[in-house]
């Protein structure tokens, strides 16, 4: 079952098409990465899912139902552009935002107590948001996003502006929410975070999805037969011939690419047969960053 299905979704603005015929399935209970360069259409897509704007064409289906007025209370949205009322107190503000998400005054108070205790910030209740530092405000905003226990959480660049300690804190919370069954869409252009956190991704460029799938599968399908070998002794020239190419050569390690029609087993066997002492062997998979740059470059052409 998918938590979110997009079918041929289109969003046009006066001079350009922000989302161009996007179809996508986001499985339930996963952390899904939505990647793309600035201006790719991520925010436009998210705004349609969160009912902020309406799609010009296509269907948005959440948990089996077409998008309707009840869905906003089941979605938690942390926008890239963070925003809170500066002059309002933390407690009042969180209660207000939680109640707009359908919680009663009492429920909101209970849930918020839980979260403020968890983040060890109960003393902030009567502070005005404007008196808090940026990082502190981000924590408050994160609580506002999760307090109503949404089925689907959409986090747009959730770590921007956070120090490493708070980044880890929020990251742990995201994992915990996911463990409890919340589906998460994580939108960013920071590839290393996606690699760490997400199981599935979709890569968007110029309003279209140009790559989609499981992170490991994508990496495997983009691997280009590169290996790193550490060994004692000397590489026999005859083994390399035209089967393998040396990309990097340092004293004790080589980065080798297998040419068309050859594989790593052949290399290993050759080395062992020739009595080379192998100390370490590793396949080098492309990083998402490399795939991202390559694919975006291709699709822009």
């Amino acid at each position, binding site marked *: 079952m998918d938590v979110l299905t997009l079918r041929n979704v289109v969003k046009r603005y006066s001079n350009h098409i922000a989302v161009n015929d996007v179809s996508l399935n986001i499985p339930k209970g996963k952390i899904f990465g939505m990647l793309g360069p600035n201006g790719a259409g991520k925010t436009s897509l998210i705004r349609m899912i969160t009912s902020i704007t309406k799609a010009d064409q296509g269907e948005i289906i959440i948990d089996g139902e077409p998008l309707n007025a009840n869905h*906003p209370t089941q979605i938690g*949205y942390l926008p890239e552009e963070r*925003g809170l009322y500066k002059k309002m107190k933390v407690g009042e503000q969180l209660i207000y935002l939680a109640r*707009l998400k359908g919680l009663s005054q009492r429920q909101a108070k209970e849930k918020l107590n839980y979260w403020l205790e968890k983040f060890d910030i109960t003393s902030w209740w009567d502070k005005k948001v404007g008196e808090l530092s940026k990082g502190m405000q981000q924590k408050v905003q994160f609580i506002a996003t999760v307090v109503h226990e949404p089925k689907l959480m959409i986090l747009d660049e959730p770590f921007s502006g956070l120090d490493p300690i708070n980044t880890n804190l929020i990251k742990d919370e995201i994992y915990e929410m996911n463990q409890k069954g919340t589906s998460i869409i994580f939108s960013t252009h920071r590839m290393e975070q996606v690699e760490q956190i997400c199981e599935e991704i979709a890569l968007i460029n110029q309003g279209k999805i140009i790559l989609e799938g499981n992170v490991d599968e994508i990496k495997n399908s983009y691997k280009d037969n590169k290996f790193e070998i550490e060994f004692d002794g000397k590489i026999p020239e005859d083994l390399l011939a035209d089967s393998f190419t040396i990309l990097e050569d340092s004293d004790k390690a080589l980065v080798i690419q297998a040419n068309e029609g050859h594989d790593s087993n052949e290399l290993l066997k050759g080395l062992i047969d020739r009595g080379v002492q192998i100390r370490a062997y590793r396949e080098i998979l492309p990083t998402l960053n490399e795939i991202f740059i390559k694919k975006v470059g291709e699709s822009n052409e």
Partner: protein
Amino acid sequence: MNSNISLIIGREYWTRVKSKTFLLTTFLAPIGIVFVYAVLGYLLTRGSDKQKNIAILDNAGIVSELAEAKNNLVLTLETKPLTELLEDYKEGKYDGIVELPALDIDDSKYSIIYHSDDPLALDEESTVRGLFRKDIRNFKVQAFGLDQNSLDKIDTDISLNPKTVKETEKEISNITTKVSSVLGGAVGMILFMVILIFGSQVMRGVNEEKINRIVEVLISSVKPLDLMIGKVLGIGLVGLTQFMIWGILLTVFSVIASSVFGLGSMETMGDMASNEGVKAVMENDEVKGTIMKVLKELASINWLLIIPLYFFYFIIGYLMYASLFAAVGAAAGDDINEAQALTTVVMLPLIAAFYIGMSAVSAPDSSVSVWSSIIPITAPVVMPIRLATDPPMWQIGLSVISCILFVVFLIWLAARIYRVGILMYGKKASFKELGKWIFYKG
């Protein structure tokens, strides 16, 4: 969804009502006004605390009989020369000497000298001047050899009394016109101020949410229209609350003030008036008569019709302009001052309505007044001004209907600009873009 609107109204209302600015303007403003009146009243009546002995030196020979002492001034007609009187002053027998110099009957001006190191209080001064007005007049009448009787008949009091051609039960007097224009003017002024003050609060509130970027979180929970309406209504309620508190406070304070200071100063004013001679006393009677007539006029106004209509125009006028201001706040960029052009467009009809309204005070039945009290963009200010002058029912009806239709249209229009504008970060929108937004679907 309705519960969301009430949540929004609640936030808009309570954050404002609990703010320091609201408490200051709501409670301190009337206290300040009352305080100023109290101080003024005290200063004006203070002079009469101590008895003052004043010598009158009549070098002109005009005083026949001294009027009674007023304002605690004890007057003595002296015949001693000034030098001796000044000795008396130094000894403390007198607090001051009023010297009446020789009178030139051809001069319409006359200066009296007051010898003292301690000047007279404001009310005392006018009492002293009033003392001799009648004497000087009589003196000049005799000197010119005029007939007092004919003279009294020269001054003619002219009044214009309108008389209806059509037969009506209600008699129109000139008092009617005056009462209704003062009433209309005051109501129009208040409406204009309310719309301007609270309308621009709506604009700033909307723009604040846009600059804060909190609007994105909000409209992922509620519909933009709900958010806009909630804000407009919440701030409108703040306005109503403030006016109600002002009304209560001013009533309470004026009751207290008039019992403590007011009556005292009223008496002295009455005394002053009667001191100005026979004519003034007559005027005083006339004043009393006028007050009675004004009260009668006020009682004859159809309050049961007018007060609900005042409320109607207050609400409609506020809704119209507040939703336009909300659209401006949404269309403005991160610096609201850049939105001057947009604000001006909204303000122009309001200011025009105010000026037309003020002219309608004196000419409630001119064609400009009539039409601008029916055309909805100006009607909320102009019609209330005309209401006290009993405009024909068809005009009121037409005005009410056109206002209702127009306010629905304006809210729709504003909401369309609003929902696009609040998500457009950065630069302010041009008029061309606004036009596009209105017809923009989705």
